[in-house]
């Protein structure tokens, strides 16, 4: 499968920035992209796969175990706990797994491997999408239309970092830590508040109205579809540049300094907006650090905070069904008050 190169995406700066921040710092807690159809949401998210630095992984392990922390759940990792599998380690690109709407629970959490059970009489667990997304990204298009029972599963796994399966005589628990990426059109349905809260960053994707930009998008997309390989080759170098920058940012994100003055403003902003819980502040800090690291800075500047605040807070405002002001305006108003005071 050839995916459209990330570096060739025209515009959509906020979405690209959000995805890069999530790639640098997975603890941000996922990216939600809301907007109209045909604006390139899925293109950008699928393109992410090519930017992720490789991770040491046990070769052929069905659960993508890290070599120093093998869960010992499959034949490769030896069915025993906490084995060091360094000799079987290889560098692998983290997966970007699609969770299609209407997927059955079996496919998502995993189930009894029917073929093995029926043909060989063997009781084996067939890992689901959650296992495949471990240490990578789980992408749900039209996340606002996801069935409730799957939302429950996701919330549970996202909170605990592991998937517990008790069904068909199987009793399995395996690690499932992934970055959730969702996209959808808000006109087609609301997102459950608990799930909304799980997403660290939310991005408002708008249809571009600038003619030159639109023309360039269409031109590149056409070139890609008519000769994908040549197109990807052309953008290969700029894609690897971003990948290298992400890798470098990952290595030093912990050392980025967050000055007290910036932190104070972040807290003040959350209070002004009534953004519930501590999650707002945490996301603000983590994403500000990630972006500063990506840009090669040693500390977080006020401008960086200001740049990322809308994405980190927009979806956390307390909902009042009778207030019609859109959240973008509310965040902007609060930012002006806090920053210009």
């Amino acid at each position, binding site marked *: *499968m*050839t*995916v459209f190169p990330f570096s060739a995406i025209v515009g959509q700066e906020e979405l690209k920035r959000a995805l890069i921040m999530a790639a640098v710092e997975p603890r941000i807690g996922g990216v939600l992209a809301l907007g*109209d*159809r*045909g*604006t*390139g949401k*899925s*293109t950008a998210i*699928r393109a992410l796969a090519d930017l992720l630095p490789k991770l040491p992984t046990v070769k052929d392990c*069905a659960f993508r175990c890290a070599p120093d922390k093998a869960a010992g759940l499959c034949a490769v990792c030896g069915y025993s706990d906490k084995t060091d599998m360094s000799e079987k380690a290889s560098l692998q690109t983290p997966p970007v797994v*699609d969770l*299609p*709407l*209407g997927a*059955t*629970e*079996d496919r998502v959490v995993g*189930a*009894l491997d*029917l*073929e093995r059970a*029926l*043909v060989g*009489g063997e009781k*084996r667990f*067939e890992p689901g999408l959650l296992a*495949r997304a471990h240490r990578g990204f789980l992408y749900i*298009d*039209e996340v606002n*239309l996801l*069935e*409730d*029972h799957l939302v429950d599963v996701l919330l549970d796994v996202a909170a605990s970092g592991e998937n517990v399966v008790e069904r*068909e005589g199987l009793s399995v628990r395996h690690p499932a830590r992934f970055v959730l990426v969702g996209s959808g059109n*808000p*006109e*087609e*349905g*609301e997102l*459950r*508040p608990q799930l909304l809260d799980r997403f660290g960053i939310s991005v408002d994707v708008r*249809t*571009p*109205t*600038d*003619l030159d930009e*639109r*023309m360039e998008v*269409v031109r590149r*997309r*056409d070139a890609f*579809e*008519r000769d*994908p390989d040549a197109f990807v080759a052309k953008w290969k170098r700029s894609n690897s540049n971003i990948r290298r920058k992400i890798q470098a940012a990952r290595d030093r994100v912990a050392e980025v300094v967050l000055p007290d003055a910036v932190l104070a403003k972040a807290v003040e902003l959350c209070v002004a907006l009534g953004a519930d819980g501590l999650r707002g502040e945490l996301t603000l800090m983590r994403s500000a650090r990630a972006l500063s690291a990506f840009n090669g800075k040693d500390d977080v500047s006020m401008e960086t905070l200001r740049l990322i605040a809308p994405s980190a807070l927009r979806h956390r405002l307390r*909902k009042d*069904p*009778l207030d*019609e002001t859109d959240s973008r305006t509310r965040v902007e108003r609060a930012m002006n008050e806090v920053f210009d005071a």
Partner: protein
Amino acid sequence: MSQSSAQSVGLELWQAADLASALLMIDPLGLKGISVHAGAGPVRDLWLEQLYQRIGAAAPIIPVPAAVPEDRLLGGLDLAATLATGAPVAEQGLLERANTGILVARMAERLPRASAAHIAGAIDTGSVLVERQGMSRKAQTLFSLVLLDESSDPLMAPPDIVMERIAFHIELDGVSMGAANSAPIGIDLLTKARASLSKVSLADDMARSIDVAALQLGVGSLRALRFTLNASRALAALDGETNVLERHAQLACRLVLSSRITLLPDVQENVVDPPPPPSDNQADADETASSDDKQNELADQLVEAAQLALDLRLSATTSKRRQLGFASGTAGGRSGALQNSRDRGRQTGTRIGDPRRDGRLDLLATLRAAAPWQKLRQKAADDERLHLRTEDFRLRRMRMRTPTIVIFVVDASGSLAMSRMAEAKGAVELLLNDCYTRRDQVALIAFRREGADLLLPPTRSLVRVRRSLAHLPGGGGTPLAAGMAEALKLALSEQSRGRAPFLVFLSDGKANISLSGEPGRDAADQDCHTLARQIRSAEFQSLFLDTSRRSSPKAIAIAAEMGAVYRLLPYADSATVSAIVGQLMPS
């Protein structure tokens, strides 16, 4: 509509359909597919036949049934063969088999979202990914998608996720065989056009005009823009031209944009960015200005072309759809079938079936079914292992909670119209806010002057509620009967889609306009009672909120006839309304 004009509309629609099919064959990579809205019949068959002839005998034509299971689409394991041979036997999925050919989805309006998502993914990435333990492969697949849309109700079109990804949405509903017998575009022409397509160039100005037109029509999607540009190139190639001319751009806009229009330009504001400020060089500025003028002029023409095509589509179908919409409602008894889900909800029993395809295996029941045969089978196979055959499989039968649709029917007549509507709107929003966790929907019908309107089609989206109900109409007489008729129609159609309707009336019951739109209290009352009986016999739950100051005998009578719960609510504020509805809503 007179017969001859119906004929000429039919002819135009048919020619557009023929042209769309030809263009798809010229540039399948750039145009992706076609949806055809028409009932099953000779006209559609003829159109399909011509498409098949154009693609040639070598290319695969793969039909996809609406109820296609995921594994059939993506490929996986052939279970029957696997069991028979005792070793895994792989099976190619439909998406992969359609490579270089066409994927034809019949009854595309019933295509489940999961299948639609897989098809959309295959179109986007040009490949299918099959990943199961012990087997993981990616297969390339490039196909054109044909959606046969047989829906009778515009609310039931095929899933957006696939519609968005194909260039043409063609209307053949209401086209007669007589209109369809014009000569199709010849195959040799298509072959020539395909060969010369790469040489066709599209001037930048022309492309920008097309984009301006698309934006003015409220079509922001960049996919739609790409389809329009590619269609205009294919049209030029078909014409034997090496440049895209105005007429090609016009035709492309008609074919691609007309079905996607969301704004009519005379009511919208300038969505396009203003031109850059004039530069110092006067001559240069003049030049830009004149080229901008030309660009806008062409854009205006393109907008007009697309609008004309929209009018054409509407004139061919509205009358018929309206009849069909009502008739389909009488078949409301099907909802039971839809509530039985294969793999969601609570188990209510077992059934025979294929566990790979459509559900979850009930292992115990399967073994029980296989047990009596073991002696015989072991003897035949001359071994002692457990013999399972496909016919032994028992699957769990699941039942889902039926989602509810709350249909508000609001009296927007007279002096209190505005406040009543505002409170109803508030109630809708509060209710939606409360039912996040349920799959429930809300719709709103308002009646005033001579008739009733569906102001808010069924939705779960607060954004949409705000947008549709931003401007509330009101005033005039009280056509309660029309409101009830509209509600009944919507309820029946929603029931056939597997939802349980719950009707909520906000009115004082003092009807004074009859169903036919004539003033007169007696006829109006009579119509109301007739409809009330119909609502009752359809067994719809209902609630009548009487907004008069004192309880009105008329309202009580109608509510009783309907079997509705009656409440007097002189100050129908949104919080109370939503609380009552929430309480009474079937769970």
